[in-house]
């Protein structure tokens, strides 16, 4: 259906400030006893289907310094390439996999998610996009949250035909979204996020 011209403007963004961890990961900020656990701290349950992986990286600023006060959220499809359907508003049920994680960067500027390898999700052209996770980054000095994606090095064929990666004209910049794999019992996918500088990560206006 057609909509009238929007009647309201989106609330302007403001920096999450230096103490975003107080609000969004209070236990990590050593404010104990308010929440039993920090939201999004655990993505997996024993019932989660899919290959266990770790998604991790450093956040680096334009001076080369590690960003040790950031907060990262991750949103992804399940192993079948489906996003968790919205639960009914007052549902008490917890899905085996929520698809959503939230982690602080540590003193070395490193974030880390224990999750599963996502399946491919259909793109706007109907073809599957390469497996990926969406990342959203906020911190002191970031005036509006930065959205990007992490793709997987071992999906080279799918990456080559990915709808989003192919929108990046400069192939060198595509590489800023592709995580390298460290094999192991639980494979680790590592991707450093550069806020600025020669290796600046591709961020999206979605």
């Amino acid at each position, binding site marked *: 259906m057609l909509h009238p011209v929007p009647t309201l403007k989106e609330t302007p963004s403001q920096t999450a400030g230096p103490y975003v961890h107080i609000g969004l990961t209070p236990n990590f900020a050593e404010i104990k006893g308010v929440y039993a656990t920090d939201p999004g701290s655990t993505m997996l349950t024993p019932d989660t289907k899919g290959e266990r992986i770790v998604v991790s990286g450093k956040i680096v600023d334009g001076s080369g310094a590690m960003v040790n006060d950031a907060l990262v959220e991750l949103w992804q499809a399940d192993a079948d390439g489906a996003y968790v359907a919205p639960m009914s508003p007052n549902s008490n049920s917890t899905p085996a996999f929520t698809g959503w994680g939230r982690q602080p960067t540590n003193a070395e500027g490193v974030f880390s998610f224990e999750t599963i390898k996502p399946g491919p999700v259909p793109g706007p052209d109907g073809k599957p996009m390469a497996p990926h996770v969406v990342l959203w980054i906020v911190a002191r000095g970031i005036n509006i949250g930065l959205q990007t994606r992490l793709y997987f090095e071992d999906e080279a064929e799918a990456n080559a035909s990915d709808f989003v990666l192919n929108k990046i004209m400069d192939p060198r910049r595509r590489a800023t979204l592709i995580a390298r794999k460290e094999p192991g019992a639980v494979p680790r996918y590592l991707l450093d996020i550069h806020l600025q500088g020669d290796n600046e990560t*591709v961020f999206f206006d979605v």
Partner: protein
Amino acid sequence: MSGIILPGGDGMLFPRDRAWHPPAATPGYKSSTFRAPKHALLSLGATASELTGPTFGHSSLNPLDNDLIRNYSQDGSEAIGQRMIIYGQVLDENARAVPNTLVEFWQANAGGRYRHKREAYLAPLDPNFGGCGRAVTDADGFYSFRTVKPGAYPWPNGGNDWRPAHIHFSVFGHAFAQRLITQMYFEGDPMIWQCPIVGGIPDKAAIDQLIARLDRHNTTPMDALAYRFDIVLRGRRSTMFENKLEGN
């Protein structure tokens, strides 16, 4: 309905008006200097990855999560400060309520001091104030919480910069691309207009959208003032979800 099909498809979000938000680099706010991307953002028509988002039921909340006066009480005492109720409606740009979405908030105590190990301001900590809380919006998009008014505080930016009293807000919406973090200020505070972080927003009308209004009708007599702060998330074309009829 007449069944008009729009190019771009149902469920697409309205483009974000980046001129209404602060740009990435705002030199008056020094921390943005090395943290602002310099390349243009890649315009991406949102896909399923951005049009979906996590949901949170009311069941995941504790009863005191929206009461910062009591949720960190160590000895049964309440937090010190000017008692307030903050409430408002979460809407989208079409002025439709956004129900069942998570709103989180954090703030300094009445003296302007955060409970954080890196916080260096000399104002005292309140042993009964943690400074964080959360709520899920109701069927009409309303949230509310109780707290004390945060103090203003100085910060190392321009040598003598002070933050106006403010509360940080984090809001989800129903699409991950609606995700928003912002700050709420208080009506009548002259320091709003001197703050380098606020000043990164180019349009005065946009700043005005961050200022909560004193609401005399909803004060609790002899207890708490009320302030109203409505939050607007991005609008989207309508998609009928059988299990989410409130979105239509």
